[in-house]
């Protein structure tokens, strides 16, 4: 099968859905010049009405997208870097997340917000956030964080067809990774985790770019006879708790890996869920491997140590094994 990059998968998902449904259109800054290629040639193919270059007005165009969605269109908003979502927080929270409920079901908000998480590239504190945990605390938003070309193509297409607002967090550390992706159409439902590697001893739930690190760690540990199961939730809201609990029931140990800041992270939520609902399966403390609660520094030697690495994951897995052995 042909292999395509994560960026190419985004391009294909958008293009196919815009071809399929004339109500789908896309808005964002500099779309026409498409610096990273996800809207390459779109203006020629779909015209400027459906491929809207916006001013630097994130709050304004997210709100406009919400208004358009509420009366029958299906916008995709490319908000560019996830750190710009704060500027649009007003509309994201007060309108996008709340309209469906608040208006008693009169409004649907079929809207996709795409946001690249642009970290580990010396872009410093204001351009490197991974803010999905904030949005997980706000009901009304569906949230996906795909970790591979195959996943993002299938999930983004589903998101575009979904009648609710979906935030798509795109991990820029994966942009140029390649994977086999079929030419034929496929969809991946929201709310279904993927077991990216099966294992017996320890469950590693990993989010977004950290899935790769987790798979690397599993490889390393396999050589020592430690069998790691890697679970990728893929969608954070809805979250496939059942798959996570089933895995922990099997392994008895949980490491959660999350490139977001640790406090109130997706990792915290997953740890809390398992401490509530999978407690009796656990034979060792849960360990989170996340980004410490510091801003992203510019200088690469400061930055690169902050995110979850396969070394940190290996160490965490060993820790859970050590602690459970000590108590046994």
């Amino acid at each position, binding site marked *: 099968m042909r292999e395509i990059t994560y960026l190419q998968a985004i391009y294909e998902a958008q293009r196919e859905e815009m071809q399929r449904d004339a109500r789908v259109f896309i808005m964002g800054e500099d779309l026409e010049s498409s610096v990273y290629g996800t809207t390459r040639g779109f203006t020629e193919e779909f015209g400027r009405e459906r491929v809207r270059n916006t001013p630097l007005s994130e709050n304004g165009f997210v709100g406009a997208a919400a208004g358009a969605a509420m009366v029958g269109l299906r916008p995709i908003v490319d908000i560019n870097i996830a750190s710009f979502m704060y500027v649009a927080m007003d509309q994201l929270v007060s309108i996008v997340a709340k309209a469906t409920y608040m208006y008693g079901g009169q409004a649907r908000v079929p809207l996709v917000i795409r946001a690249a998480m642009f970290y580990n590239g010396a872009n410093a504190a204001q351009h490197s956030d991974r803010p999905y945990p904030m949005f997980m605390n706000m009901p009304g938003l*569906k949230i996906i964080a795909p970790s591979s070309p195959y996943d993002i193509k299938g999930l983004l297409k589903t998101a575009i067809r979904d009648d609710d607002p979906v935030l798509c967090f795109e991990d820029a550390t994966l942009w140029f990774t390649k994977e086999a992706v079929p030419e034929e159409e496929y969809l991946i439902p929201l709310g279904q985790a993927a077991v990216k590697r099966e294992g017996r001893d320890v469950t590693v739930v990993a989010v977004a770019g950290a899935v790769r690190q987790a798979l690397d760690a599993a490889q390393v540990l396999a050589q020592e006879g430690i069998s790691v199961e890697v679970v990728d939730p893929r969608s954070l809201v809805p979250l496939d708790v059942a798959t996570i609990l089933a895995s922990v029931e099997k392994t008895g140990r949980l490491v959660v890996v999350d490139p977001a800041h640790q406090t109130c992270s997706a990792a915290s939520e997953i740890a809390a869920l398992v401490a509530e609902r999978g407690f009796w399966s656990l034979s060792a403390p849960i360990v989170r491997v996340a980004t410490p609660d510091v801003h992203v520094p510019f200088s690469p030697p400061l930055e690169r140590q902050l995110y979850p690495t396969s070394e940190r994951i290996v160490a965490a897995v060993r820790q859970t094994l050590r602690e459970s052995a000590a108590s046994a």
Partner: protein
Amino acid sequence: MTPDFLLEMYRRILRIRYFDEAAVELVRQGELPGVAHTTIGQEAEVVGACMAVRVDDYMVGNHRSHGHPIGKGADMKRLMAELLGKVTGVNRGKGGSMHLADFSVGSVGETSIVGSGVPVAAGAALAARMLGTDRVCLCFFGDGATNEGAFHEGLNLAAIWKLPVIYLCENNQYAVTTPAAEVVAVRNIADRARAYDIPGVVVDGQDPVAVYEVVSEAVQRARQGLGPSLIEAKTYRYLEHAEGLPIAAQYRTAEEVAAWKARDPVVTFRQRLIQEGVATPEALDQVVAAVRAEVAEAVAYARSSPYPDPEEAFTGVYSTPVGGVR
């Protein structure tokens, strides 16, 4: 303007007045949960503007928009039921006084985060055009809202994309207790239109016909693809910011309030209809009586409606639930 049209204006002005008087009473009696921001005093601009658009045109309101769906022809029963949190309310009791939506008359949602409706209105107008209709969107907001970033971004977007939207600033001179003169850096808010190269017009908000005329012109421009307008209606709210809030501050003089009340649209518009021979005092009294009955019926309907089943709180966050999420 036909006599019927003028009479309908009068009728809608009265509906808003009496509806809100009833709402105030319901707050005082503890039947209306939370607080209520009334449109009393501002009815003329609301009705003048709403009657300048079609029922299938979109409308976006704010925290102070009980009157606006009424101006656009909505059924008062379901609005009043919403104010009481009943399941028969337009939003099934989930929205309340500050978040009325009535899609059946084009009211696509009021939003109580000040300024937040401005971009939404641009989007509804964009969709109107992209869907191939000639609909416009009428967007209401206050003087205070024009200091929010969302106002600026929304107007710029509407201007560069020539969207069919009419931005109607209800300048009632205050944001809660803060005078516009102290916090809005420009004398006439309509002058802010110059920052977007769109028409900016000041109109007497106490004269429904004047408002109707300037809004009609803006609507015509919008339908012709000439883009948005900013209209500033100078008006006044008679009551405090919200019924139910403990505002004690003396930020308006008695003279100022009296001067505005002397131009009460309910009174002056009636006089005008009589003077211009549109209707006799008796005919108008009949309208008054009919509207009073309608409002009483709305209150009775709202009162007798049930609350939503508590389970409803847990549904409707998503329109297409998946997994554990509903």
